[in-house]
Structure formats: C-alpha cells, structure tokens
C-alpha cells in the first residue's frame, strides 16, 4: 500500500494543533518487538480455543475504557489500545483514578445519541406502555422482545461458561459503563451443580472444559497426577468429607497401596 506524504511546512509545524493528528505507530516511548506478549495467552493465543476456533470477536480499538471517552484517553495521551498496555508499566495514580471515577459518575448515559423512531414512540406512549406492561410483560412487544433477547444472551453465555446460575448485580458506578453487549457481568457468574454420591475424581473432560485445554493435555495431566483422596466440593455432608488420607501416606505400587507387606515366597 502506497500513499504520498510530504514534509511539514513552517506553518504546519508552528500550528500543528490546528490539524488532525494520527499516530501511525503506538504512541509509546518504547516497544519490544521480541516481546512474547503478542504471541502468548495475552494476545494471539487467547483468540483461539483448544479446537482452533475463534473464542470471540475483539474490536481492535476497544479497551476497558469505552472509545467515546476520548477525554479519558487523553489523560494518558496515548491511543486507546496502546494506553491499556501502558497502564501495566505505569500504574495509574490516585489523581487519574479520581478523574476517571468522576467522569463516569458525571456521564452515566449518552444523551447525545439521536433518538430512533422506536425511541420516540416509546417515549410518547410511555405511560400507557407502563400500565400495559404492568399487567403482563408479554403485552408490550418491545419490552417482551428485550426480555427474550436478554434471556437468550444470558442462556448462551451460561452455556459458554458452563454455568446454570448467575448474579447480574454489580457495582452501580462501573456497571453503567459496561458495553451493551456485556449486560451480564461475567465476574458475577457462578458455576454450581448438585450431585449425590461419592466423588469419582476429576476427569479429562472436566479439565478440558474448565481450563479450555486440548483433551490430550487434560488426559496427560491426569496421568501424572494422583487422586488418592477425593473430596466432593459440592457436598456439605460430613460423611462425604472423608478424613482418611492413608492413600497418600504410603508409596503406591501400581494401582493399589498397603501398609502391610505380604510375603509371597519363603525367604
């Protein structure tokens, strides 16, 4: 790709603030091309799961700060994407932190976005809609649709993380700035299950799911790991919490252990 550029003239150098400025490279003092950050689990590797599929689409310029918060990014004087990586090298001071919190509190909603036709209709008939929706949510199509969408998204998210329950309550200050696509704070999701009977130990399928590693890796991990004492973390029954740990007292011979030596031949 080729495009023509030229040197800045005197007027442009003197009044560069009057011109739009684009950083073609990360606005940082240093950059290590040999850094493993780009290849390891922080970047490229984290984009694919154990089956080689994409785990999620990541918008390139999206960071923990929303992109419309240009004022926030200017606090760091860096492009948004590069700014986050810089935060690890240069810890945020308290002044910047308070400015960020104040900014979030002052602008919880974006009132600058133009209203759609649906928004206008809903605002005009808000009282009527509230009365109808109070009878049953299915009587208000937009409300009902929104609930279905939310439930579908929650269901998909729950399936993805292997969770059957979750709590969508979160900090009021920061939840307002969570992108609309992530209405369910993932840090509040709890995976739980009820099972009866004694624990049979960890399986490769379970490790594959919770660690998101290939099956072969999970199987190999189990091969080199003993499960001599199995405790069921889901059970509160005391009889399931065995205190017999003799299985880890002694050396194992193949698949069994014993503290008694049986002589099979006359000495």
């Amino acid at each position, binding site marked *: 790709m080729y495009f023509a*550029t*030229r040197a800045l003239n005197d007027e442009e150098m003197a009044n560069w603030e009057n011109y*739009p400025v684009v950083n073609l*490279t*990360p606005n940082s003092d240093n950059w290590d091309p040999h850094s493993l950050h780009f290849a390891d689990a922080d970047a490229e590797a984290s984009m694919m799961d154990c089956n080689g599929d994409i785990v999620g689409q990541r918008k390139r310029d999206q960071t923990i700060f929303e992109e419309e918060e240009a004022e926030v990014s200017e606090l760091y004087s860096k492009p948004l994407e*590069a700014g986050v990586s810089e935060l690890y090298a240069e810890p945020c001071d308290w002044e910047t932190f308070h400015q960020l919190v104040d900014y979030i509190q002052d602008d919880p909603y974006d009132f600058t976005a133009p209203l759609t036709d649906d928004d206008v209709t809903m605002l005009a008939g808000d009282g009527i809609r509230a009365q109808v929706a109070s009878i049953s949510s299915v009587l208000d199509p937009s409300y009902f649709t929104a609930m279905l969408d939310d439930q579908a998204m929650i269901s998909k998210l729950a399936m993805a993380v292997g969770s059957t329950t979750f709590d969508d309550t979160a900090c009021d200050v920061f939840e307002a700035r969570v992108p609309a696509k992530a209405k369910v704070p993932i840090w509040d999701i709890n995976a739980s299950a009820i099972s009866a009977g004694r624990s049979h130990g960890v399986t490769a399928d379970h490790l594959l799911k919770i660690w998101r590693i290939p099956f072969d890796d999970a199987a190999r991990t189990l091969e080199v790991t003993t499960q001599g004492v199995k405790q069921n973390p889901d059970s509160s029954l005391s009889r399931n919490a065995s205190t017999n740990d003799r299985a880890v007292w002694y050396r194992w011979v193949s698949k069994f252990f014993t503290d008694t030596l049986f002589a099979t031949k006359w000495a």
Partner: protein
Amino acid sequence: MERVEIGDVAVAYDDPYTGVTTILIMRNSLLIDSMDHNLLPPFLIGEAALFLDETPKFQSNDATLDNHCIYDEVTGL
C-alpha cells in the same frame, strides 16, 4: 547496520478527496538517509489501533472501501 538514528517523525498527508491536511506521527523511526520512502510495518499500524486492510480492491472478491486502506476511526481519515 550501525549508527542508525532513531527519532519521532511527523509527515503531512493531503487528502486528495477532501483536501484536509493531516499530520501523521511515527514514533521510534529508523532514520536512513539513503531511503526516500517511509516503510511502515503493518503490525505496528494495527498496534496503533488503526484499521488496516492490505488486500487490493482488484483482488478482493467483494471489493469495498474497506479494502486496501488504513482507516482512523477517531479522525475519520
């Protein structure tokens, strides 16, 4: 190569369609006197949070304005 200078560089780009002049910043550039072209690694452009598509439009199966371009969402360049 030895004794290669490293510097932050600014060049001007004149948009042929709008006429708007934009200042392009390149940090930590290698200054080589014998070169009259500025070479830029596509990886670094991506790291600068710019959209980059290297596929020429005539090679694209479904050519759009997104093909073969560098786009800055902030300035709209």
